[in-house]
């Protein structure tokens, strides 16, 4: 492993995915406590609105939103270390005068964040599957695990895309606003499905877009969907990393 990448891994581990992971675990516990205690009419409304059946489904609906946001946001904040923050603090020139190519710099600063986000996703997938199996039976543990893996793959692909967008932004505050808007965008079809189901009557469109309820609609297919998502995400991440490196090599301000 190149020394810069090794150093960045060490730094990323020291700063720690531990705290965001603990917050996510606390959220999973809170959701399992709150949802079953909601009045029956509220639960019936959610079942009807999102086309789900069991208590496990209702808990998972909220779990998936929490996991999605708590994987995406720390990743989006950490990726500002690639370009935006060094640019704002006038440190980028200093980094790039080191004997390291811009491509290696981008990879060294991006890959540890993506790896740790992916690892956090796998931990959360295991915990969520175990949680619903124990606390809200009956639940299909494999479907839950693969659903969270699918969600993680989506988050990683979005972060890789965000990394390219960040190259056009020079201030952390602007970058975080753009990152948050990009992160919330995949959840908009879910709101549309709740309030304007007439716009999502095509079952295929609903199954593709209504995140995260769609992860509950076809449990038997989730392992296949997860495999396809991970493959697609890996290809997208590779392409977007390559694009980010190219953009930095040709950046007009450097």
């Amino acid at each position, binding site marked *: 492993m190149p020394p810069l990448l090794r150093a960045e891994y060490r730094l990323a581990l020291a700063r720690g995915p531990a705290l965001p992971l603990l917050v996510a675990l606390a959220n999973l516990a809170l959701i399992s406590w709150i949802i079953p205690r909601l009045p029956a*009419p509220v639960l019936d*409304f959610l079942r009807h609105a999102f086309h789900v059946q069991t208590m496990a489904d209702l808990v998972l609906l909220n779990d998936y939103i929490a996991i999605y946001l708590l994987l995406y946001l720390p990743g989006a904040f950490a990726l500002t270390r690639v370009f935006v923050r060094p640019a704002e603090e006038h440190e980028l020139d200093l980094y790039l005068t080191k004997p390291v190519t811009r491509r290696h710099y981008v990879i060294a600063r991006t890959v540890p964040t993506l790896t740790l986000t992916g690892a956090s996703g796998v931990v959360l997938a295991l915990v969520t599957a175990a949680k619903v199996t124990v606390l809200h039976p009956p639940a299909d543990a494999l479907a839950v695990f693969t659903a969270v893996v699918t969600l993680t793959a989506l988050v990683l692909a979005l972060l890789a895309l965000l990394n390219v967008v960040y190259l056009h932004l020079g201030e952390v505050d602007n970058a975080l606003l753009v990152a948050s808007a990009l992160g919330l965008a995949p959840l908009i079809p879910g709101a549309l499905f709740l309030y304007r189901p007439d716009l999502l009557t095509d079952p295929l469109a609903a199954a593709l877009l209504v995140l995260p309820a769609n992860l509950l609609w076809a449990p038997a297919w989730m392992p296949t969907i997860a495999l396809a998502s991970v493959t697609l995400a890996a290809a997208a991440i590779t392409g977007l990393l390559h694009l980010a490196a190219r953009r930095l090599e040709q950046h007009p301000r450097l």
Partner: protein
Amino acid sequence: MSASLLLAETRTLLRARRTKLSAGLLLYAVIAVPFLLARPPAEVVSAVARWFPSRDPAFALFLFVWFDLGLNKLAALIGVVLAGGIVLDAEAQRMLPIYLAKPITRARYFLTRLGAAAIVFSLLFGGAALAGLLLFPSQVPGFRAPVFLAASALHLLGALSAVVLSGAMAVWVRLRLGAMLSSLVLLFTLIGTAFLGFYAPAWAPALTLNPFSQGVSVLAHIDTLRPADVARPAAILLSMHAAVVALGALRVRRLEV
């Protein structure tokens, strides 16, 4: 707080790209919410009528979606980007020692920056409410401007907690990104539980200290709104904001530069 510095900070923030981006997001919400509510399903209307009793269920649904889906999420994002880096941004740009060499105390500098963020936040959300006042009467059945304005004013006071909490978090956590991320996660948690008291009334007392719950409490009195229904939560919110600002000012006095 220095008036001239406050004015200068407010002007700078008004010209910042993040303020323009925030205005764009709010404009999007003003346009999107009526579109989203053009044909609500019957089960949504009946559920909302149960939670927010009103003679106009469509207006109650509109207020719920406007505050919950439209404004609350944006309040968290905009509050964090306006105030989540105050003091720390100057420190990161190595300008803080220069500012503090001026005849201004650290607490006053913090209060001025926070005040400017609160003013710009209020202008943005107040502007969204005024834009809504022009657009919504023709698009929302049963729209009542006085109730909308009272609800918007109280909601703005509640949403200002996004600015206040982010500013205080910045000086307590001291790591700019860590502070902003912590603020965002905390704010999303508060927003996620803001309406729980309506869904499960037994839980309402536990949400007294949730500023976003206080900010939407008008929705319990849509048809019977009295000044006290706004004044009581407003007093609670002002007290909470004062306490959080005081904690931030206390901390900033002890910062080492």
